[in-house]
C-alpha cells in the first residue's frame, strides 16, 4: 500500500510513541499489549476501574494505526440483531411484492403449472442475500477494506449468550449468518474489549484474549497524562494536584478519583485561574473529583492533611 500513514507497529517503543502522538500516555504494559495484539491478531481484554482510559486506549490505537474505530456498546439484552446483522425487512417486503408483480406478468404466458414452477425456480433466490443485509458493528468491522479497530465496550454488561456470538468473531474473525453462511473478515480487525468486572466473563472468551489490566497510574505517569491532556497548566500546580489526587486515592473511598476526574479537575483549575491549591478552593471543586456525597465528606475532613506539604509523603508511587 502506498499510504505511509498506515502505521505498522515495529516495536513496543514505536507503539508507545505512536499512542503518545494520539494524546494517550500509557505504561509499557499497555503498549506491549497493543503491539502483541496487532501482530498475534488476538483481541485485548482491558480491565480496570472506571475512568482510567480503557476506552481511550482503543480510540488512541485507532488514531495511531489510522484505522476507523467501530464501537459496540454492550448492554443488558444486546442481541445479534443489534450487534451482528439485521435483515432489511422493508426492502425484503418490497422485493417480494415486485417479485409477485413480475411473475404474474411472465407466468401468464406459461401454459402449465409445471412450467410456471420451473420458471420460478430459475430465478435466483436473493431474498436472503447480502443485498438485504444490514451490517451492525461486528459485521461492519469485518467488512472494512483496510481493517478496523473494533471496540467492544463494557462487554461485562452484555448477557452471557452474547459472549457466544463474540467467540466466533474474535477467534476466527468471521460471522456465520444462518441463511448465507460464514462471512470472513477482509482484514482482521484489532479488537479491544473493555470490562468493569461487574460479572466474570466466560472462560472461553477470556482464553481468546490478551489480558490487560489498567490501574490508577503512578504520579509520574499521571503528570505526563495531565501535561498532554491539559496543556497550559503550570508545572508546580500540576505536580501538586497530581500529588493531591494520589493521596486522595489512598483514602478509603467509595469511588476513588480516576484519571478522567483528574483531567476534569485540572481543566477546571485552569479555567478558574488557580495558581496554588488552597483549601477553600479545593473544597469547592472537590465534587469534580469525587462523585459520592459520603466521599466528599470524608475527604473534606482530611483536607488539611491531604493538602499538607506534598513533599512530606514524597512522590507517590
Amino acid at each position, binding site marked *: 500500500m502506498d499510504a505511509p500513514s498506515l502505521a505498522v507497529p515495529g516495536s513496543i517503543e514505536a507503539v508507545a510513541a505512536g499512542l503518545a502522538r494520539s494524546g494517550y500516555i500509557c505504561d509499557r504494559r499497555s503498549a506491549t499489549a497493543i503491539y502483541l495484539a496487532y501482530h498475534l491478531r488476538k483481541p485485548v481484554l482491558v480491565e480496570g476501574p472506571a475512568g482510567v482510559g480503557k476506552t481511550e486506549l482503543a480510540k488512541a490505537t485507532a488514531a495511531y494505526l489510522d484505522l476507523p474505530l467501530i464501537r459496540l456498546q454492550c448492554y443488558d439484552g444486546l442481541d445479534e440483531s443489534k450487534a451482528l446483522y439485521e435483515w432489511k425487512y422493508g426492502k425484503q417486503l418490497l422485493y417480494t411484492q415486485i417479485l409477485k408483480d413480475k411473475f404474474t406478468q411472465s407466468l401468464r404466458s406459461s401454459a402449465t403449472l409445471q412450467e410456471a414452477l420451473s420458471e420460478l425456480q430459475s430465478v435466483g433466490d436473493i431474498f436472503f442475500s447480502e443485498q438485504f443485509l444490514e451490517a451492525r458493528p461486528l459485521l461492519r468491522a469485518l467488512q472494512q477494506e483496510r481493517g478496523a479497530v473494533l471496540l467492544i465496550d463494557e462487554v461485562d454488561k452484555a448477557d452471557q449468550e452474547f459472549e457466544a456470538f463474540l467467540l466466533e468473531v474474535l477467534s476466527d474473525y468471521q460471522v456465520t449468518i444462518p441463511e448465507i453462511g460464514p462471512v470472513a473478515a477482509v482484514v482482521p480487525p484489532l479488537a479491544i474489549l473493555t470490562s468493569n468486572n461487574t460479572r466474570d466473563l466466560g472462560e472461553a472468551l477470556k*482464553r481468546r484474549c490478551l489480558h490487560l489490566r489498567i490501574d490508577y497510574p503512578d504520579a509520574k505517569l499521571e503528570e505526563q497524562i495531565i501535561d498532554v491532556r491539559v496543556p497550559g497548566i503550570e508545572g508546580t500546580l500540576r505536580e501538586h494536584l497530581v500529588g493531591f489526587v494520589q493521596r486522595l486515592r489512598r483514602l478509603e473511598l467509595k469511588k476513588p478519583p480516576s484519571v478522567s476526574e483528574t483531567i476534569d479537575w485540572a481543566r477546571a483549575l485552569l479555567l478558574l485561574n488557580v495558581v496554588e491549591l488552597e483549601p477553600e478552593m479545593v473544597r469547592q471543586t472537590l465534587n469534580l473529583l469525587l462523585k459520592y456525597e459520603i466521599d466528599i465528606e470524608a475527604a473534606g475532613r482530611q483536607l488539611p492533611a491531604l493538602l499538607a506539604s506534598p513533599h512530606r509523603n514524597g512522590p507517590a508511587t
Partner: protein
Amino acid sequence: MKATLLGFLEVARNAGISVSNAESIDAFNALALVGYDDRLTVKDSLGLVLAKTAEERRRFDACFDRYFDVGKLDAAQRASDSEALEPAESRPESEDGTLPSLERILLDDDRASLVRLLYASAAAVDLASIRLFTQAGFYARRILEAMGIVGLEASIARMRSSGVAGEARTADDLELRRDAVRELAKDLVERRLALRGEEPQGVRDRFLLDARLTNVDRRDVERMRVLVRDIARRLAIHHGRTRKHARRGHLDMRHTMRRNVAYDGVAFKIAWKKRKIEKPRLVVLCDVSGSMASLAHFLLLFVHCLNEALADLRAFAFANRTIEVTEILRDDSIDVATKKIMAELGFRSSDYGRSFEDFENDWIDAVDRKTTVVILGDARTNYGDPRVDVLRRLFERCKRLVWLNPENRVAWGADDSAMLRYLPYCHMASVCNRLRHLERLATDLLGITQPRPASVEL
C-alpha cells in the same frame, strides 16, 4: 530457551494459572515476536497472554520472579563455572564431553564438572517431575546414586582399609567433599520443590472438597473459604444470566417477518421475544445451635457467599428462636457477621418447633410459590414439639423445600432427631457435611450444570 519456557509454563500451571495448549502456543508466538532479551518485556508479554484475572496476574508475577530468579542463579553459576573451566583445557573430560567419575572430580576439586554432573544427574532421574515434599529425600538419594556416590563410598572404604597414611588423609578429604555434594543435591531438590510449592494445592482442594466440614483443620479454613466463595461465585455467574430478559416480550421483527412471508409480508401472525426465565428466590434457614456449632461457621459462610451472589436471598438463623440475618450478612464481612449471629444465638440448644413458629409468624410473606426454602439443620429437637404442621404449611406454600442435614442418613430419626417426621414435607432432603455436597446443592438449586474448575477436577 524452549525447554525453559515449557518448564515455566508447567510451573505456572501448577501455581493455579490455567495454561491450555492454545495459551502455550500463544506464549511461544508472543516471545518469538518480542524476543527474549528484555526481562520486563518477556514478563509483560507472558503476563498478557497467560494471566486471565487479577488474581492470576498476581500469581503469575510471583511465579515468574521465582522461576526466572532460580534460572538466573543457575545461569550465573554455569557462567562462572565455564570461566573456571577455561584455563583447565588440558583436562581429559573436555575432549568428548563425558564427565569424569565423581571421585576424580572431588579429588581434583573440579567444581565446574561437579555442577555439570549434578545437573546431568538431576535430569537423568527426572527431578522436574517432583511433586510432593515427601519425595525430596528420595530424589536427593537418586541424584546422588546417579552421580556415582556408591562408587565413591567404595573407594573411600578401600582407601581406609589400605592402611597407607596418605590414602587415609585423602579419604578424610573425600568424605568432607562427599558431604558437601550431599548438601548440594539436597539444596537442588529443595529449590526445585519450591517452584512446585503450589502444586499440592490442587490435591489439597480435592481433599478439602471431600473432607467432613467438622473435621477441617484450622489451617485449612482459609482455603475452605476460598472454595466456598468459588462455589458461590459460579452460582452468581449463572444466576446473573438467568435473570436477564425477565421483562415483557418485545416484538420479534425477524421472527414475525419469517412467519408472514407466506401472507405477502402482512403481519398476520405476530411473534414476541418472550423468554420466560425463572428467578430462583431463596429463603435459607440456618441452624446455629450448639449441636451445629462446628458446622454453623461454614454454613453461614456459604449463605454469606450466596448472598453476594443472589440479589433476592433472605437468610435466617435459628436456635431456640429465629432471627433474620439478611442484612447482617449483606453489610458486614463474614467474620463480623458470624460473630454477631453467634453472639445472638450461638450455642443455645435448638428448639425447632419454636423457631419454625417464629418464622411463620413474622416472615411467612417471604415465601411464595416461586420460593425455594433451604433448611440447614440436624433436626435435633431436644425432644421438643417439632411442629411438623408448620413445616407442612411451609411445604405447601413454597415451590421447593430442601433440607440439608449434616448427619448421616442412619442417624436420621434416632434419639431426638425429628428428621424422619419432617421428611414427608421436604421436596428434597440430603446429607450435607462436605463441601462437595454444598456444591451439588448449589447446582441442583439453580438447575445448572457447570464444569468444575481445573483445580478440583477429578
